[in-house]
């Protein structure tokens, strides 16, 4: 049996670790709350945009917009944009995202598509550095408070290259925020744009006066739609990260408590054993002196 003093030291160490994980859990909980508000706040805009595009879009218009261009002769060159977090200690969160991205890359490469990788977040960058794959672009400055400007910076070069034909598809890999406990890694094809159909009322009930024209409005709204998809992905991934971290830290705290229970019990037994032994020795010694 281990020495009581060593046990005592382990108990202290577990206690300290538990304090840290508990605190991280609390911090993530409050950050999650705010991140969740941002996810909810971004919804009306996305919905309004999708509604209007669904309203104005008709398949006959498709050829006129570069962002809707379906690549002729299959996808030859595709970009994958992977969003991960900058920090760890959030369970399998980043591992899941990376796995999804690799799966997607493999899928594309199997069909003979040339791929390039764009990375957001230190964790994704670190992984692909390890696999010696050079990303086409990487950035770590977005953090957990993404702004629409970040999304614009990320996606504008991709949109330009898609429009001039040097890219045939852009896939976005991010964590979809269904709820704090359900954040599945998701792949979304952002280019070519799949015009939204949700929210479309059956038949056009209202005949709008459109200025300047349906085409012109669509033309300027489609880029907004693409940017907004990226923005939402950033916001959702940020929220998902905090959710994942909270769960991971809660598990760690619980595991710490279990461990402490066992250690404490072992310690008590060891201490009692020691006392019993010492008593026996004293009694034995006294008996021996009596002769």
């Amino acid at each position, binding site marked *: 049996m281990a020495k009581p003093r060593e046990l005592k030291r382990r108990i202290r160490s577990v206690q300290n670790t538990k304090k840290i994980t508990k605190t991280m859990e609390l911090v993530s909980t409050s950050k999650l709350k705010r991140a969740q508000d*941002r996810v909810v706040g971004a919804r009306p*805009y996305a919905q309004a945009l999708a509604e209007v595009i669904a309203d104005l879009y008709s398949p006959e218009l498709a050829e006129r917009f570069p962002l809707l261009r379906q690549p002729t002769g299959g996808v030859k060159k595709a970009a994958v944009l992977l969003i991960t977090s900058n920090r760890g200690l959030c369970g399998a969160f980043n591992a899941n995202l990376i796995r999804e991205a690799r799966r997607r890359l493999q899928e594309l490469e199997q069909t003979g598509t040339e791929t390039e990788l764009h990375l957001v977040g230190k964790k994704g960058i670190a992984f692909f550095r390890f696999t010696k794959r050079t990303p086409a672009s990487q950035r770590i400055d977005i953090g957990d408070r993404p*702004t*629409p400007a970040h999304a614009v910076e990320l996606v504008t070069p991709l949109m330009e290259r898609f429009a001039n034909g040097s890219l045939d598809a852009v896939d976005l890999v991010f964590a979809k925020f269904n709820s704090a406990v359900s954040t599945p890694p998701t792949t979304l094809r952002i280019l070519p744009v799949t015009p939204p159909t949700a929210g479309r009322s059956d038949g056009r009930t209202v005949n*709008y*006066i459109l200025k300047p024209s349906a085409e012109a409005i669509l033309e*300027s709204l489609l880029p*907004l739609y693409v940017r907004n998809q990226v923005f939402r992905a950033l916001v959702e991934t940020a929220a998902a990260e905090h959710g994942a971290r909270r769960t991971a830290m809660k598990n760690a705290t619980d595991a710490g408590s279990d461990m402490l229970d066992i250690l404490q019990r072992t310690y008590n037994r060891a201490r009692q054993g020691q006392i019993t032994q010492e008593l026996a020795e004293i009694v034995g010694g006294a008996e021996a002196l009596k002769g």
Partner: protein
Amino acid sequence: MQVTIISAERSLFQGEADAVVAPAFDGQVGILPRHAPFMTLLGEGEVKLRQGGSETRFQVSGGFLQASANAVRIVTGTAVPSS
């Protein structure tokens, strides 16, 4: 009429107004209650909402304005209240 102003990050304003003046792509447009269904692209500038005697202003850029069924919806990339 009911007016909503939505930016990419959040919904900024929701409420009643007697008149809306917005910077459309080619100049100012004014919307009064019971306006015909109307949709226009927005440029950059100030949206003014008149409510009784008071006026609320927002600086907006891009996006669109949609007027229908006595409701106006302004959807713009960025919107900030201006004093």
